[in-house]
């Protein structure tokens, strides 16, 4: 995957580039907004990682310009501004996700992967399939090996998110943000309990567990 990092903090950019490179991505760096815009216009990127506050042209203006020009490349905003209002501003400007600094590297990788996947599945699927697990989005039913699994509405949403990002690590914060739509860190392990409930429903009684715990990152649904 080809990723553009627009970040004026060169050390942070270098660390990101190295980490993303090690996970098999091709990375291009830009040190300010204008440089970033030029690079993004050249095109060919799968994901843009854009810092919000930069010299010459800030991240918001950069993404707004790209969107106006019809460039729909997924954008992950990085920002030290973490209030809900700031997040909303970022998403309204055309960002697809918003990560507050400082962040765990696993979180960054998970979100970048999630964004790239989002682009691939642009068509509206009515049935999601991961291995022998099948989700009917219209009938709101889930089957594994033909056996119906009974899920609560929230469990259904949780599994849907995991299935849409099958094979990728998703973090607890991502789940809380995307499934519950809260943007704070709970002090207790609420998410883990929900996952373990879901796990007991989709994995119990089957020979192979699908819902994996990824140490230091979160969870992953494997086919």
């Amino acid at each position, binding site marked *: 995957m080809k990723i553009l990092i627009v970040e004026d903090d060169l050390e942070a950019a270098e660390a990101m580039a190295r980490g993303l490179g090690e996970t098999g991505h091709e990375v291009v760096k830009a040190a300010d907004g204008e440089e970033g815009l030029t690079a993004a216009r050249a095109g060919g990127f799968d994901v843009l990682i854009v810092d919000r506050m930069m010299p010459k042209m800030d991240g918001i203006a950069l993404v707004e310009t790209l969107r106006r020009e019809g460039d729909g490349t997924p954008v992950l905003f990085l920002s030290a501004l*973490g*209030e*809900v*209002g700031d997040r909303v501003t970022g998403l309204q400007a055309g960002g697809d996700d918003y990560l507050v600094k*400082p962040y*765990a590297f696993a979180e960054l990788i998970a979100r970048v992967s999630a964004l790239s996947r989002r682009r691939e599945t642009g068509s509206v699927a009515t049935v999601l399939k991961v291995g022998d697990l099948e989700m009917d989005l219209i009938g709101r039913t889930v089957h594994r090996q033909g056996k119906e699994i009974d899920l609560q509405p*929230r469990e259904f949403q949780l599994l849907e998110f995991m299935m849409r990002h099958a094979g990728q690590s998703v973090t607890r914060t991502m789940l809380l943000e995307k499934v*519950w739509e*809260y*943007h*704070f*860190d*709970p*002090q*207790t*392990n*609420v998410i883990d*309990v*929900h996952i*373990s*409930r879901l796990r007991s429903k989709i994995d119990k009684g089957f020979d192979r567990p699908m819902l994996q715990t990824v140490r230091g990152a979160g969870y992953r649904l494997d086919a």
Partner: protein
Amino acid sequence: MRLPRIFRTTPFRLTLLFLALFASAALAFLAYIYVATAGEATRRTDQEIVREMRSLTGAYDRAGVDAVNQSLIERAASERPFLYLLLGTDGKRISGSIETSPVDKFDGSPTWTSFAITDQNARGQTFKRPARGLQERLKGGEVLFVGADVGEDEAYVLKVVRALWGAGGLVVVLGLSGGVLVSRNVSRSMAGLAGVLEAVNNGDLGARAPVRGTRDEFDELAQGLNEMLDRLERSMAGHKHAGDAIAHDLRSPLTRLRARLEAAYIDVEAGKGDPTKALVQALEDTDGVLKTFNAVLSIARLQAAGTAPDPTVFDPGELTADISELYEPLCEDKNIDFAAELTKGLQVRANREFLAQALANLLDNAVKYTPAGGAIMLRVRRRSSGEVEFSITDTGPGVPEADRARVIERFVRLENSRNTSGAGLGLSLVAAVAEAHGGRLELDEGPGKVGESGPGLRVALILPRAA
């Protein structure tokens, strides 16, 4: 030269403006009175002169110049108040009560003139008296002048004029003193406000304007100013306090982190100890510091803003149902009986995210302190006062009654965070959220002793009714 303060005040300037308008109106009114009185007197005298002239020219037309002469002689004897002069065709005086005509240039047409006659009073002093007269050429070429002493009229006019000046002066004096009185009154009220502003400018945020209880616009202004200063003072205190708290809350975990890294470095250097383990530990510590930092920052922003950002009006029942759904499995996992009692159809005006976080923090706390086999109850209801109450009751150890007020105070003042990690800050955030929404936090006893533990704690977050 600078004018005394009182003359520079806005009310005084307004008074001057009104005075000028009023004086113009008064002037027009006085002019009308002048025309109607003094003007009238002159007109009447002129009419009488004309009548006398007609009477004499009538005699002339009937019986010639001798009849006029005769009339003049008779009239001089009868002491009529008219002045006469009859000149012959050659311009020489024939008869009359004055010697020469006061008309300088006479072209033959009837001519009016104003002049002065010399008179003598009882004591023999001479003085001039104003007079008016009309001169006409008679048909035979003789010239007749009829005049009248208008001294009496003039004196009357003079009186009127003097009275008018007096009245005008009175208007100005009354207006000016009224203006001074009004502006002094207003100035005194304004001086109080200006004094407060000056004090605040000089750094005394505690200065407040006096409210006199008259409920006039000055009182309203003073009250508004005081409220603004209250908020400003709270906000400043919040900023300062938040700064102190951040320093306190971050210093100890950072010190710990540094000590651990240092110890790990020494160990690794010496060839003993596992660097990976030390790094994992350091990462965890850093995450802890970040969590603390985020919590303190949220609290600080709330306290500094004084109000919740982006509030919306919504049904708190739905939000609470969501939160319940999030925590219910956790309780079940810990073998805690969780129940929610949510009144539907209520309305609160709040920042959704902050309210959700406050409730989550309260539930986190309840879960942390409630032993297995206990119970947690989340309830949303409307109080009879119209306030909306979110309460979380647990069967944990609770807080002794004597300590409750102090505990809340400590949440509010962030003191907890220094010794305990996480929980204290979480509740401090709840307190900050309550305050930012104009609400409050109440601590109470729980349901009493349940099994091994008790008596439990009931924390209520109370928000004002949505306006």
